[in-house]
């Protein structure tokens, strides 16, 4: 459902991600793990067609992003790190707008909006102005806009960042349910290990722009706690970086 082939992204002299490749099958729920600044957001932005990669290719739902980005975007629901809301709109209006942007036909919009509202527990909030919602509800509206057009793929960038513990568990439960329904493929980034354990079946670990690990959670658990694995891999990545830096200095 999602395929990345040798994705590399450079910003000027800075390499954000280098040669990232993975495949995600339909219905999988994958946690995209890594310390802050590891390249999670960059990878997700490439998968959503927001950023073009410097090299490499990616496809979502069988559509190559470079060749048929529009079809890929149509089957993708994306929740960026901060939900892309319009503060002055009503929740209902906003969702209908997002549906229209994603080519949902006018006569289907009310039904799809109602379903997204129900799925995210927002029925009572549909007539509220987005500005007046609490942070937890804004995050729900963010999730609702990511599913309103019934995408086969959901890409969620730190969906629980900045929420309180109760809201976090609610949002996690919501993501689990949305993933289970209709076998949606989900990729969600986080730096919270417990989140991966709570929601995901598979882990992609990225550190210093490189993919360090791609394994099923069950297999990982046999190697010790997720935290140990995480620290080990990030440290190993840092060592590689450190050595590389020394090498570069030597060459100069």
């Amino acid at each position: 459902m999602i395929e990345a082939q040798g994705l590399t992204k450079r910003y000027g002299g800075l390499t954000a991600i280098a040669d990232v490749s993975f495949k995600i099958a339909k219905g999988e729920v994958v946690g995209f793990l890594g310390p802050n600044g590891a390249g999670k957001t960059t990878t997700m932005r490439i998968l959503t067609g927001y950023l073009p990669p410097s090299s490499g290719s990616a496809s979502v739902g069988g559509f190559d992003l470079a060749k048929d980005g529009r079809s890929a975007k149509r089957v993708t629901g994306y929740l960026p790190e901060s939900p892309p809301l319009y503060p002055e709109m009503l929740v209902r209006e906003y969702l209908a707008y997002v549906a229209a942007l994603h080519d949902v036909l006018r006569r289907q919009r009310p039904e799809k909006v109602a379903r997204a509202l129900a799925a995210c527990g927002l029925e009572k909030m549909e007539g509220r102005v987005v500005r007046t919602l609490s942070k937890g509800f804004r995050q729900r509206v963010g999730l609702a806009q990511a599913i309103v057009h019934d995408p086969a793929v959901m890409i969620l960038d730190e969906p629980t960042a900045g929420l309180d513990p109760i809201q976090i568990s609610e949002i996690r439960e919501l993501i689990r349910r949305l993933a289970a329904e209709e076998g949606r493929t989900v990729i969600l980034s986080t730096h919270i290990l417990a989140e991966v354990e709570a929601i995901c079946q598979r882990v992609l670990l990225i550190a210093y722009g490189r993919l360090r690990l791609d394994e099923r959670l069950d297999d990982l658990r046999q190697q010790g706690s997720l935290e140990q694995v995480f620290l080990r891999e990030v440290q190993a990545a840092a060592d590689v970086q450190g050595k590389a830096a020394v090498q570069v200095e030597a060459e100069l």
Partner: protein
Amino acid sequence: MNRLLAIAGRELRSMFVTPDAYVLIGVYMLFAGFIFFASLGIFLVQLQQIQALGMMQLLDQWNLQDIVIGQSFSTFALFMCFLVPLLSMRGFAAERANGSIELLLTSPASSSEIVLGKFLAIAALLLVVGLLTGSFVALLFLYGDPELLQTLAGLQTLFLYSLALAAMCCFISALTRSQIVAGFVGIAAALLLLILPVAADSSQSDSLKEVLRWLGSSSHFDPGLKGEIRSEDLAYFGIVIAVFLSLARAAVDSLRWR
């Protein structure tokens, strides 16, 4: 097309649920109304003086059309230099500041649809401004007999000129996250275009003079506001709109590369 209309519709709705558009258009109407009725008042006083002095030969040149309508329209054009940038500064700057640009750029909408959607919303708003402006000119027809066609030509020119400014401001607002910057740069650019023909007069070289005069907006709306529609002026406004909308599209495209 659906996506374009969705973008334009959202833009328009958000202009009318926030007080911005009401306040800006309200203040414009206040000033425009004041200018219009003040110039009408002055005209009437002068007319009485001319009649009292018995200078009947002056009356032929002293007509309602040129003095009241022509002069007011020139002032309205100056107001547009402030109104249009302030109305359109939200455009892309606000979307970038609150992150909703990410929604647009990851949706199936193309850069052209996004730019045209925004432009269409402002165009609709400016049409309302044009109709409101036309409404008090219409009052003159109740009491006098101004030239209908000349007046309509003036209104059309005012509308075209505001569209050209809107296209320019659309582009400017795609370059920044700050609405204030977008607004001020827009006003500055509009005023600069307005005074270019003055700079042309002080220029030494003839070719530069021609270029500056052609680039300046006032040399293209002055004839129109007085009622004379020239194809070169229509072409000028068309070109300005097309150039700035293409630039805006390029600017939106470039957002995808950062």
